[in-house]
């Protein structure tokens, strides 16, 4: 507190330094610019603005699902699991094969033709999701056993490098023509897309080829599905972590591994289970992502994986609500900056936001500032 050379310093200078005016001023200036841009657009064309916010929400909810897996794994083993994005890719492919080859989404209506079609469709889609989730869990479990577990006592970076290795392997092995093939494959959605528009007159569905009625915001059933399933899955995860025995063990292991071991918790087993659960979410996210952006190919996991990881860091890694909030912020940041500030710079802006948030709150928004998880 005591400034040693206070006498030689002008009061103004001291005030500036004490209050960190220069640094904070820079941040405030950047913030003001962003707020100004957005406010101007909001006033100019509020409908368009809300539309963009909805776009951002859809993207954010997809990121949230991937971010959940990242945040769990990182929270417990402090490993940036670069292969997570590729497990996500595998999930998307499994669901693709589930739909096109196995016709799993129609099994209910083919076995019980009398079943109500909507319910049959939902059950069919859920079956596909479950298939993707289980496959991804098994895959992640195997990866964990083969590639990460032997390195648990090695420097942390070695595991990171194997994670990168596994990631490369999954990508390029998947790109071989007899695995997933290197092609860009159009994803077949297990249901049809309907778009609704919402304006003062209420909600109505938009016919194909019809222009949007002026003054209305549109959203599709994909948006609804993604939002609902993301929230459901997050609640499920929250329940698992907070209220079950496995979850308790996970939290204990994340908090202090040696002590958890002393308390009779099978830490290695818990870590494997964590990987499995995280991968199950990646599998579900893979399918939802492919539904939203209907194309699957071997490289698709990298960028969403990276962005979801950034979202998890932004929200405070290790925290489930944090991952969720971080993902929503990332979605909005990307869409709004693409819409109103500069499209080429959208990734740059997303990362700048991350850096600024980390500078203000070094552990992310929901991160625990006092201690890091061991």
């Amino acid at each position, binding site marked *: 507190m005591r400034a040693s050379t206070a006498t030689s310093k002008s009061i103004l200078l001291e005030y500036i330094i004490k209050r960190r005016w220069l640094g904070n001023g820079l941040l405030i200036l950047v913030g003001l610019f962003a707020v100004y841009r957005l406010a101007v657009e909001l006033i100019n064309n509020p409908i368009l603005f809300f539309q963009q916010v909805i776009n951002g929400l859809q993207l954010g909810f997809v990121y949230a699902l991937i971010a959940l897996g990242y945040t769990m794994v990182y929270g417990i083993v402090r490993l940036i699991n670069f292969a997570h994005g590729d497990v996500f890719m595998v999930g998307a492919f499994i669901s693709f094969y589930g739909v096109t080859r196995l016709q799993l989404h129609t099994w209910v209506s083919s076995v019980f033709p009398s079943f109500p079609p909507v319910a049959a469709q939902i059950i069919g889609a859920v079956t596909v999701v479950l298939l993707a989730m289980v496959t991804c869990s098994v895959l992640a479990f195997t990866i964990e056993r083969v590639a990460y577990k032997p390195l648990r006592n090695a420097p942390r970076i070695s595991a990171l490098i*194997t994670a*990168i290795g596994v990631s490369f*392997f999954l990508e390029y092995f998947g790109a071989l023509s007899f695995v997933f093939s290197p092609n860009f494959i159009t994803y077949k959605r297990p249901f049809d897309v309907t778009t609704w528009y919402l304006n003062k007159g209420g909600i109505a569905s938009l016919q194909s080829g019809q222009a949007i009625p002026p003054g209305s915001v549109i959203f599709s059933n994909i948006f609804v599905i993604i939002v609902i399933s993301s929230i459901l899955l997050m609640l499920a995860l929250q329940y698992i972590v907070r209220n079950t025995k496995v979850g308790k063990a996970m939290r204990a292991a994340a908090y202090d591994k040696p002590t958890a071991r002393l308390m009779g918790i099978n830490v290695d087993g818990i870590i494997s289970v964590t990987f499995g659960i995280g991968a199950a979410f990646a599998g579900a996210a893979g399918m939802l992502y492919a539904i939203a952006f209907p194309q699957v190919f071997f490289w698709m996991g990298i960028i969403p994986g990276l962005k979801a990881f950034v979202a998890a860091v932004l929200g405070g890694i290790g925290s489930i609500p944090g991952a969720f909030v971080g993902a929503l912020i990332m979605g909005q940041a990307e869409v709004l900056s693409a819409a109103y500030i500069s499209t080429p710079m959208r990734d740059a802006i997303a990362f700048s936001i991350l850096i600024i948030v980390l500078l203000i709150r070094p552990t992310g928004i929901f991160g625990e500032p006092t201690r890091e998880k061991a």
Partner: protein
Amino acid sequence: MKKIQRGTLVFAIGAILVFAIIQVLLSLQILNSFWFTIIRIGAVMAIVSLGLNLIYGFNGQFSLGQWAFYAIGAYASADATYRWTQLHSALGVLVLLFAVVLSGVAILLIGRWVSRIRGMDALSQFALYLIATVLLVWVAVLLGKALDASVTAFLASLPKNVSLQIVFFVCIILAGLLAAEVSFLFGLPVLTLGSDYFGIATLGLTIIVKVLLDNSDTMLGFPEMKGARGMIGIPKITTWFWVFTFLILAIVITRNLLLSSYGRAIISVREDEIAAKAMGIDIAFYKTLTFVIGSFFAGVAGALYAHINGFLHPNTFNFIKSFDPLIIVVFGGLGSVTGTVAASFAWALVLEGFLRLWLPEGFETWRFVVYPLLLLIMMLLKPNGLLGNYEIAYLRNLIPPLRNKNENQTPPPPPLTVATDTQEVKS
């Protein structure tokens, strides 16, 4: 003492021998341009990775930003030599020179002033430096334009080859310094973040730099860089001599730095930040110092790289490739200079060289299936890297081996609390 001397001698003789042998093989065309390019790339990667090893291996800062500084070095030097060879103007070199020197002086002066008044937080310092550098770069452009004609005339009076080599050499150094200054500016606020967070922030820098390079013709105002179309017309003047000289320099600088009291301070920061601080070590200073030196290497390597193929494309500086130096450093053994150099060459030779030759026809796609498998097997068999803590005699016994930071024994250092503490103590 005597032992070190012998080691030095062996190293020097070995270096000269390696240089001479490869040079002879090149002259005799035994090593064709295929291998020549790969060897040069290997050496360039070695310089980049040495920088990263300094930052990560010796100072414990997990950085993924090395590739960004590599890109900055490559494009900055390429622009200057392009202007010299294609436009016959020394403007690029001059502006680069003045910008680097003026900002460098400004950074030193402001740094001294800031350290005297104490209590200024990193972000405010960053703002201060930023304003100063922006102003000085503007001054540099004016100065460069004023002096352009006379310097160009002077350089043009020299023999063509000599002037080109001079320009090239100056550009390499300036590219390194520019990368160092950018890293200083970027590192100031960001180095206060904890280990993994620092990694993510630097990854962000890599992505930002790539985006800027993609739009270098429209957003940065360098039409000759041609943005995503790739920059052509760069002279291909990176010889084995230049690459090798800078590699040896990088090794010697690393070694001598680590030998000095600075080196011990740098390593102490890696080992335990709190203990280091208790010993009176200025953590922020040493982190910045290492980061800047490491980035200097990256900038130099970038400049060398730019003049190998004579073509630069932003895709080369994609963030996925930014893992390459990291892989090399870990592969060679974190905190092992010998290992890093060996791994760089091994990486270049195996990935681009042998895998191309060995894989049977029809299996070209398998190159990147085999590569991660090799990586995985290596990591599982030797988690501490190819050479572990081994060093050649010249470098041996200088560096305490990397302590196995096993979480079962000790929790990882909580750098975040340290970072906040630093600020509070200062204010």
